[in-house]
């Protein structure tokens, strides 16, 4: 064997040696779960029963929630999907512009950048059960939001007697406000990092040509940040379609299903009512497909015009 091919072979052996821990875990925990779960979505079994009792059901599980084979489940599924879409839309419409504006304001100041940056990251850092309970308290019937409104003339008719999460028409918007609040830091910090990579000379050139602040934003900042906007849209879209913990802790999908989202429905189907592990998996992969397609679409739509 020549010296050269020996070195090559050594490189291959070393590479797979280095990948062994990661690959082992991936095969056992990752790939197996994924394949198993896709497989399960074509079988009928309830969570109490053994795997050996699984019956092949073809696409029945999908027909159950997509085409009304199970009427109640179909209605719940489409309603939950609608809520997820509302959340996605609101996240993209509010998180992106608010984060960019805040990042630009932060970029402009001389003193105190570090302290503001630290504080601005708090909603992301604390995004957990603890902070969801705080918002539950703020939205409570006797919580600080209602108490605050009670003290402002003309705003006291906004008070929600059953709490902001207890009324059919305010529960979802209240959840969305909280979701936006905790999603801003992640996007803000991406934009903040991105702004620092823009060449200052571009702005100076625009100053010489007499460009206004708005023109600079439109023709320099926004196009230069397009790659980050793509990442931000995909991340927020994914977060909106995968939302679970907030809803689970704060409303469990209630009142009367007005904040029900897909993942809560799936979790209930699989672990709470135990009505069908198969159906839960089928719903989960449908959500995955939707997330994947929407991510691809947004990447195409936002692609740099120069590459097109």
């Amino acid at each position, binding site marked *: 064997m020549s010296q050269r091919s020996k070195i*090559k072979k*050594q490189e291959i052996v*070393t*590479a797979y040696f*280095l*990948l062994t*821990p*990661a690959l082992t*875990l*991936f095969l*056992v*925990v*990752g790939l*197996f779960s*994924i394949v*198993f*779960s896709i497989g*399960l979505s074509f079988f009928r079994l309830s969570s109490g029963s053994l*795997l050996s009792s699984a019956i092949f059901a073809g696409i029945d599980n999908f027909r159950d929630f997509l085409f009304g084979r199970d009427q109640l489940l179909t209605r719940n599924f489409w309603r939950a999907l609608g809520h997820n879409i509302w959340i996605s839309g609101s996240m993209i419409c509010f998180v992106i512009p608010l984060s960019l504006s805040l990042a630009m304001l932060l970029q402009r*100041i001389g003193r105190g950048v570090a302290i*503001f*940056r630290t*504080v601005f*990251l*708090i*909603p*992301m*850092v*604390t995004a*957990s*059960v*603890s*902070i969801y*309970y*705080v*918002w539950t*308290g703020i939205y*409570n019937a*006797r919580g600080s939001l209602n*108490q605050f409104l009670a003290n402002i003339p003309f705003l006291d008719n906004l008070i929600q007697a059953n709490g902001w999460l207890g009324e059919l028409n305010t529960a979802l918007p209240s959840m969305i406000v909280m979701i936006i609040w905790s999603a801003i830091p992640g996007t803000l*910090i*991406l934009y*903040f990092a*991105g702004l620092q*990579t823009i060449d200052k000379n571009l702005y100076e050139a625009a100053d010489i040509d007499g460009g206004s602040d708005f023109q600079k934003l439109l023709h320099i900042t926004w196009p230069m940040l397009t*790659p*980050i906007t793509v*990442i931000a849209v995909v991340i927020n879209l994914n977060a909106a379609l*995968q939302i*679970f*913990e907030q809803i*689970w802790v704060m409303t469990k999908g209630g009142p009367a299903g007005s904040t029900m989202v897909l993942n809560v429905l799936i979790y209930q189907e*699989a*672990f709470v009512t135990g009505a069908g592990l198969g159906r*839960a*998996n089928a*719903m*989960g*992969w449908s959500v*995955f497909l939707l997330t994947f397609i929407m991510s691809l679409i947004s990447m195409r739509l936002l692609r740099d015009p120069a590459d097109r």
Partner: protein
Amino acid sequence: MNRVKTILNYGLLALWALLCLYPLFWMIGASVKEPMDVMGTYALFPSGTWHWETYVEVWKNLGFFKYFINSVNVSFWTILLINIFYALAGFAFAKLRFPGKNIVFFGFIGMMFVPVITVLVPLYLIEYYLGFLDTHLGLIFPMVNGAAPLAIFLFRNYFRTIPHSLFESARIEGASILRILGQVYMPLALPAMATITILNFLGSWNSLVLPMVILSTRKLFTLPIAVTLLDTGVFRQWNVLMAGSLISVVPVIVGFTALQKYYIRGLVAGAVKA
């Protein structure tokens, strides 16, 4: 005119800062109030005495000391394994040539889109057969695996920015690949490790759904489920609930504030420029 602009600028930033801090202050205030005084007012802090003894109650009598140690245990091992496993893998993807490289790489990256809630069912079944159910290892393994896409991506990008000539000259001098990795690349990868450590500390510390499914023994619980145990439904003891909440939130705030400089630097190097 410029002065007005500056003041407006600071004003808007301060307003948002206040909105970021408000829930945290609410949490602190509620935890030291009398349980009956939390609702029905918008005053953040108690008008009378501050009841710090609620913390003693939660920490000692309600077992939060134990839950805290459990959370530290799970997060520590998760972060350690993530850094070791995916630094090795990231190095292989960045510097070595081997068959199947692209397929394996995109296999890992593709996991990023896998719906967590959905794979919980098969995960539960596998852990049942392997005997990991209701153990901390049963939490650590899926958490480590879940971190793979981003960690591999960041390590690979980071190793790529280190000049390849360094690798080649060490090879010519006869150093083995493992030695080059250990003595040259690992020490240079510290900023990438800091970013990955922060991100996964947040993820593992705050995780609720995984422990909810995997753990059933109370003495193994991590802080997020422990906090949900304090939720007594309609008649919530807000002071106790908020004291438990604050205990679980403080470590991440402290950790993140200390390391955020590296996090932002790592983002600029690893994600934004890539």
